[in-house]
Structures are given as C-alpha cells and as structure tokens.
C-alpha cells in the first residue's frame, strides 16, 4: 500500500461552517464534503440529472485552491443487492477528479432497495451481513470504484443497532479481506466503534487487534446521544472521552494514517461553537502528531 498523503486534521462540511471557512480562524487542514448534499440529484430520468448551484461551485473552487478536499459519499449503497447506479458512479468519479481528492470514502452498508421498480432510500446505513458472500459482492464494487477513481477508495466501519445472526466473519475480518483481496482501504470511524461498544455489540480492544491498521487512511471522530436505551451516532457534539482514548491508542498504530476528521452536524455547531470546534481539532492534532510519519 502506497503511503498516504499526510493531510492533518479536517472538518466535515456543513453550511453552518461557511463563516468559519472563509475566515482566518479556520482551524482545519482540509475539508471533507458529503457530495450528495452539495449537488441536487433530479432523478434517473432527468436531464441534466445532477445540478450544482453556482454558489456551491464557487465555494468548492475557492476551498480547493486553499486546502485539500476529501469526499465522503452517502448515496452509493455499496452493499445493496440492486445494481449500482451508473450515473451516480460517473458523478462521484467526476467530482473526485474535479476536486482533486487525495482519496474518497463510503460506508460498509446499504441504504437503498427497490419495490415494484420504485427506488427506496431509508437514509440509514443498514448493515450488510458479515460473510464471504458479502466480501465477493462488495469487493467487486470496491475494486471497480478504485479503478474508476484512480485513487484510494475507503470503506467506513458501520454502526450495528440490530443483530444479524450466524455471521461468518467479524467486521474487521471482512474489512481486512476487502483491503487485501480487493484493493480497498479503511476509514476507521472511532465514534461508530464506540457506539457499538457502548451498545454491547463488540469489544474495542478485540476489534482493533483484528483490524489490519496498516489499511487505515482516515479516522472519524464525533459525539453522540442516548435514545431509547441506545447510544446513537448523532454527530451531536464534541467526542466523548472514550473516543479520545481510542484515538490516542490507535492513531500511533496506523502507519498510513493521513487524516482525522471531526464530524459535527450543522444544527449542533452553535452548541459546540467556533472555540469548541477548534479545541476538538487541536486535541486531534495532538494524537495525529504522535502518529505522524517521521520525515526521512
């Protein structure tokens, strides 16, 4: 695996960040964007199908002249049994090229299905079964995305709110196979891992020991909330202490780590504030410094 470009710490774009993004106080080394929220998809029968407002285009042109941009997709639905949407893939690839993304990422999950030729999108990262058949199914898609993109394509570990019985593999085993045999990479979401630990789904130390950490290019950190007896991945604040502990432990063990991204929903930005956001990134930078490759 070739060394990752070392980007530093980043923020996931939300419109609430516009003021900070254009100011001298911008605290991050790169910006991560969810492209699906920045273009408008008018649907499969529409021409043009993907429309980008002039303001959004100008914003991204300005940002890419100042810092790297990463793309983190939510619409590919790589684990879906339905065919991947070829026009969506074309759009994703074109944007990665336009924005010059060092790498791109998606979720080890599915969010779309169909019924009577009607597409359905549940807006959740529903779990794929952790088994060999999934490796074949998702792996071929990872390989194709990698080929089309001409750059690294990472999969993010998922949250598991309900169980799939009698699975053959653990999630780290499946991710390791997707990396080793299908040329994938890993976006290690430490808050997702923490969610799964808090909900009694897995053990963090076992998970991190099983995962091939040389494949981790990027780490996500975030905060969450309690709901109905579960701890959920709400992106609703600064990371809890347990996530910082995980970050401090795992970052030095990831030799190809290129970036740590803080995910915060725009509706919670006022609660965390500019100062709080900067503090989160400064704290992440400390962990990153321990993990950073030493210049030769």
């Amino acid at each position, binding site marked *: 695996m070739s060394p990752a470009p070392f980007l530093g710490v980043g923020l996931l774009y939300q419109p609430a960040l516009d003021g900070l993004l254009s100011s001298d106080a911008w605290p991050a080394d790169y910006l991560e964007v969810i492209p699906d929220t920045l273009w408008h998809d008018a649907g499969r029968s529409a021409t043009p199908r993907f429309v980008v407002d002039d303001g959004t285009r100008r914003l991204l042109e300005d940002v890419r002249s100042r810092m790297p941009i990463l793309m983190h997709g939510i619409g590919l639905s790589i684990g879906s049994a339905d065919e991947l949407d070829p026009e969506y893939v074309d759009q994703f690839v074109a944007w990665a090229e336009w924005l010059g993304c060092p790498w791109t990422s998606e979720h080890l999950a599915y969010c779309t299905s169909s019924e009577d030729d009607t597409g359905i999108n*549940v807006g959740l990262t529903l779990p794929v079964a952790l088994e060999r058949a999934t490796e074949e199914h998702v792996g071929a898609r990872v390989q194709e995305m990698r080929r089309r993109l001409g750059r690294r394509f990472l999969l993010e570990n998922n949250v598991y709110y309900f169980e799939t019985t009698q699975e053959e593999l653990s999630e780290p085993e499946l991710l390791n196979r997707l990396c080793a045999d299908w040329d994938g990479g890993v976006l290690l979401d430490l808050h997702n891992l923490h969610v799964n630990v808090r909900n009694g789904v897995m053990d963090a130390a076992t998970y991190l020991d099983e995962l091939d950490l040389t494949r981790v290019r990027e780490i996500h950190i975030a905060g969450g909330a309690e709901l109905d007896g579960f701890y959920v991945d709400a992106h609703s604040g600064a990371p809890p202490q347990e996530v910082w502990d995980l970050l401090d432990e795992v970052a030095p063990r990831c030799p190809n780590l290129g970036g740590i991204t803080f995910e915060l929903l725009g509706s919670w930005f006022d609660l965390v504030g500019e100062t709080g956001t900067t503090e989160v990134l400064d704290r992440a930078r400390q962990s990153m410094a321990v993990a950073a490759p030493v210049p030769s």
Partner: protein
Amino acid sequence: MSLQTYQRAQVAMVLDRDVAHRISGGDLGPWQADLTPLERERLVSQATDAGLALSRKLHKGWRLTKLLTLLPITFRVGDPGLLSDLVDAYWRDHLPQGLYFEAEAAGFAAFVAGQVPASTALHDAARLEGALLAVGQRGPSAPSGPIELRLAHDPRRLLSAVGGEALPPPTSDDGYDIAVSAGPSGPRLAVISRA
C-alpha cells in the same frame, strides 16, 4: 435474488412496524419463497430486536425533519395532532425515494390541501408551500410555467410566520390571487391582476 429479497424485507421492517410485527410471527408474506432458511431466521430475529425499532425511529425522524424544514408554514399553522395523522397516512402510501425531499414535501403539501377544508389556513399554507416547492423543482416533474393560486388567507400573513420577505399586496375582498414562479434566486410571488 435472495439477497435482494432479504434486503427488501429488512427495509420494509424498518419502514413499517406492522411488517416487523408480522415477520416476528414468522409471516414473511411475499418474500417467503425467495429467502434461504438462514435469511428467514435472521429476519424473524431482527423483527423483535429493539435496535430495529430504534432504526425505524431514526428513519422517521430523518424523514420528518425534512418535511418540517421544507414546509415550515404548514407545520406552523396546522394542528400538530392532525399533521401527525396526515404524515402517517401519507407515508403509508409513499415510500422514501431519495435523499432529496422536495418532491415528497410537495406531494405531502398537496395531500394536506386535499384532506382539510378549503377555508382553513392550513389548506392555504399547504397550497402555497406546495407551489413554492414545485416551481423550485428540477427535472421532468418541474412545472413549465407559473402556478396560479387563489387563497382565502392573506399570503403576507402566512409568509410572515416564517419571516418571508416577498409579500404581495391583497388583491380583492374575497381572496388573494397570486402566481408562484421560479426566479433566478428562488421562487417569486406576484399578484395576478384581474382587471
């Protein structure tokens, strides 16, 4: 296509509590024949998993937030209990089709307008916001020209509920005739002259 059927059934359980309830009792309905024994076992187990109910709540919260954001006047002037019932009724017949909810919100607005008396502010709010959303749509569903509305309630008062700025003056004593059209910086309202 066993995986496709499995995912269809799983998605159906996330969307609809009644489907999950049926599956929890072993009734896999139209999916039964296409599933492997292991897939059936997994679905039946998931049907009673509290995490599946949580996923349903997360999904509905996500979908409802989009409606609240896109139809602020409708949800401001309408009775919350009535609107909750209308949302449930609308969702029973309409699947969530994408990440973009303008079309769903416009459809829900039309549904609301068709369900409540024409004399109510909710009726006019839904029609007005439905038109505002419709002219902003792109693609084949976009209207080719302005949408004309006759409202019983002053659109200035409806729009003021959300801080609207483009306020047309009243047009007559028995109603308000307005045209909603797409402008370069968003939807525009104009008074229709009947002279």
